[in-house]
């Protein structure tokens, strides 16, 4: 080991017993020093004790300690007597000898760092070396005795430095171990939380409880001073949980936030759009933004303010937030789909019931009309619809046949259809004549629909004695009166469709005489407008063709022939509308 040139051996000889007494004293002091600094793992305490001990020993009024970093720089961590501004300053120090040396003896041209110490007023440097590695340096200045250190003093200082280095390294290692341990504990805690909340999230089907669980988990994990959770609700973001000061963020800000696609600290947000998100978030007291995403789509955000501990949000924190947010959204989505499925099932059940009720409104058995053979059918599409047909027997031996189609589909149409039937049945006994009755039905339907729905309607009175059909057609597909020679008449007289406006002019009434062999065909647009897979309508021309081919058959045969041909046309396409037909064969 090289002797430092700066500390020549002391020239004055020391008496032997004095030397051994001093030596005993030094050993005891070293022992006590070692005991004290090894009794603690608190670095500030250890450093402070080292500085004070050495300052006392060499009668110096100033001391500092700089610790080495991985980049070869030494940063001042504690000062005593030196100005506090020295703390935190860094200097790059090359190789140093492991013994104490005086700065005055070093050439700043050879060692750049010497200049730094000189300028700060450090006159003596004592490296802290452990296993050939300099972990730090102690620096002293303002020594009261201006003389150089004796060899004995240097040796003693080296002993102190060695003990110090070991104690510092030990504290460092243990602190680092504790830090890593804590980090590990934190990770385990995070994993536990994710595992457990994930399990609970999926067990809950109530969105409110799921959101509360997310809120509690965030509160417990981060102790945030402020927070806000927003979730997509249709096109907008909706705040579902929050603790913020000031005004709640509004639509535009929330929409801009939704464009943030990865977790980010507010300080790192780059403002691009018109809304200064960063400013707004700082105003809200928020520190991090974590998007909640599902299938590449923004479904919400978690915003957190500073932690009460004032610790910064680490990358691990952001990852945890991302994970728990995504877990929550998957469960929320599942709960939503589940609820939707249940509601859909309920709705379908209700529609099924509605369809049954509606079927029940149609005549289950057709009355026998003397001289006529009648068949009727209502083939409903999947939904409840608004088609209607009816046959009523009048006390004077006449019959009423009626067919109608309420605009639209689903429950509203079905309701109106039921309403139409009730109206007709209530009004028919009034002796108003078909035209007058139609006017009254129209007025009542107008009141009931409020003008936003309408009904095409055809009805007629059959007198079996005279085989006369007296009818009114209120905007319904013209029925056919088919003669046995293949010619036909269309029953087109009447007036406006029902339910649009109150009756202004009376409905026109017309009468036709039915002859033996004639066929009366009433239908709804479910027949004439039946769609093929190529979006082609069935059409009346094709209907007329079938009628001519089938007209020699019975009423039921004619009806079946039409239905079959419609099915051939629509093959494969779902039935879009109710199909209703009445066929009367005159004997």
């Amino acid at each position, binding site marked *: 080991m090289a002797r430092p040139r700066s500390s020549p051996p002391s020239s004055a000889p020391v008496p032997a017993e004095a030397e051994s007494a001093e030596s005993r004293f030094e050993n005891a002091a070293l022992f006590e020093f070692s005991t004290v600094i090894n009794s603690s793992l608190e670095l500030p305490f250890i450093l402070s004790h080292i500085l004070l001990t050495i300052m006392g020993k060499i009668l110096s009024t100033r001391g500092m300690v700089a610790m080495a970093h991985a980049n070869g720089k030494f940063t001042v961590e504690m000062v005593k007597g030196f100005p506090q501004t020295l703390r935190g300053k860094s200097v790059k120090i090359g190789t140093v000898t492991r013994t104490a040396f005086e700065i005055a003896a070093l050439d700043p041209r050879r060692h750049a760092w010497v200049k730094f110490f000189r300028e700060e007023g450090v006159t003596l440097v004592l490296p802290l070396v452990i296993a050939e590695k300099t972990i730090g340096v102690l620096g002293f200045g303002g020594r009261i005795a201006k003389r150089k250190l004796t060899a004995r003093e240097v040796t003693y200082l080296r002993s102190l430095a060695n003990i110090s280095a070991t104690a510092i390294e030990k504290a460092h290692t243990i602190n680092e171990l504790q830090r890593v341990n*804590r980090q590990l504990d934190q990770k385990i805690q995070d994993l*536990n939380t994710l595992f457990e*909340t994930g399990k609970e999230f999926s067990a809950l089907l109530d969105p409110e409880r799921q959101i509360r*669980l997310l809120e*509690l988990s965030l*509160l*417990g994990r981060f102790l945030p001073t402020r927070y806000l959770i927003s979730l997509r609700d249709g096109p907008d973001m909706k705040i579902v949980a929050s603790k913020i000061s000031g005004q709640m963020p509004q639509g535009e800000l929330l929409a801009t936030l939704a464009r943030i696609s990865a977790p980010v600290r507010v300080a790192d947000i780059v403002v691009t759009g018109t809304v200064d998100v960063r400013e707004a978030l700082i105003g809200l007291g928020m520190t991090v933004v974590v998007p909640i995403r599902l299938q590449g789509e923004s479904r919400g955000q978690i915003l957190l303010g500073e932690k*009460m501990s004032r610790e910064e949000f680490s990358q691990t924190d952001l990852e945890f937030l991302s994970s728990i947010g995504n877990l929550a959204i998957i469960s929320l989505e599942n709960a939503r789909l589940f609820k939707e499925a249940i509601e859909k099932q309920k709705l379908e059940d209700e529609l099924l019931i509605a369809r049954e009720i509606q079927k029940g409104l149609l005549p289950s058995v057709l009355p026998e009309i003397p001289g006529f053979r009648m068949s009727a059918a209502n083939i409903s599409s999947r939904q409840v619809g608004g088609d209607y047909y009816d046959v009523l027997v009048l006390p004077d031996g006449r019959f009423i046949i009626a067919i109608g189609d309420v605009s639209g589909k689903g429950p509203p149409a079905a309701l109106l259809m039921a309403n139409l039937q009730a109206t007709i049945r209530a009004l028919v006994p009034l002796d108003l004549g078909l035209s007058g009755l139609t006017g009254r039905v129209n007025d009542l339907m107008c009141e009931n629909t409020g003008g936003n729905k309408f009904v095409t309607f055809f009805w007629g009175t059959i007198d079996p004695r005279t085989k006369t059909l007296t009818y009114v057609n209120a905007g319904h597909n013209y029925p056919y009166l088919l003669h046995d020679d293949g010619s036909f008449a269309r029953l087109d007289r009447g007036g406006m469709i029902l339910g649009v406006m109150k009756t202004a002019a009376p409905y026109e009434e017309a009468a036709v005489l039915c002859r033996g062999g004639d066929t009366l065909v009433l239908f709804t647009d479910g027949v004439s407008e039946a769609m093929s897979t190529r979006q082609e309508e069935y059409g009346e021309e094709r209907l007329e063709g079938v009628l001519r081919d089938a007209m020699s058959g019975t009423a039921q045969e004619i009806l079946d022939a039409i239905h079959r041909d419609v099915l051939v046309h629509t093959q494969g396409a779902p039935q879009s509308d109710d199909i209703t037909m009445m066929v009367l064969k005159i004997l």
Partner: protein
Amino acid sequence: MSEFKIGQREVENVNILELKGYLDAHTAPKLEEAFQNLLKSQRFRIVVNCRDLSYISSAGLGVFMAFIEDVRNGKGDIKLTNMSPKVYNVFDLLGFPLLYEIFKDEQEAVTRFFDRAK
């Protein structure tokens, strides 16, 4: 399924909640309910005895956070006592000692309410 129970007592007008078992995402609502009931009847001096608490998760810790402000606004406090080292570690890990007074012993916590009052 995890088991969690809350016992309630009163000592010198301080409400003691005794937690037993696993306080996690599943059982957290029970503790929420207990706090809600105390707040409803304006009882703000609360000591939570964790002697028989074997596990606490972030959601469980969140419950304490969710109520502490209301409790303190009511001039009361939630104080925690008798934690096992394992449970304390979790509280400590997440920074709770900064915000909550944690005592070794329930009586210490109860007395503390009256120290303040004086």
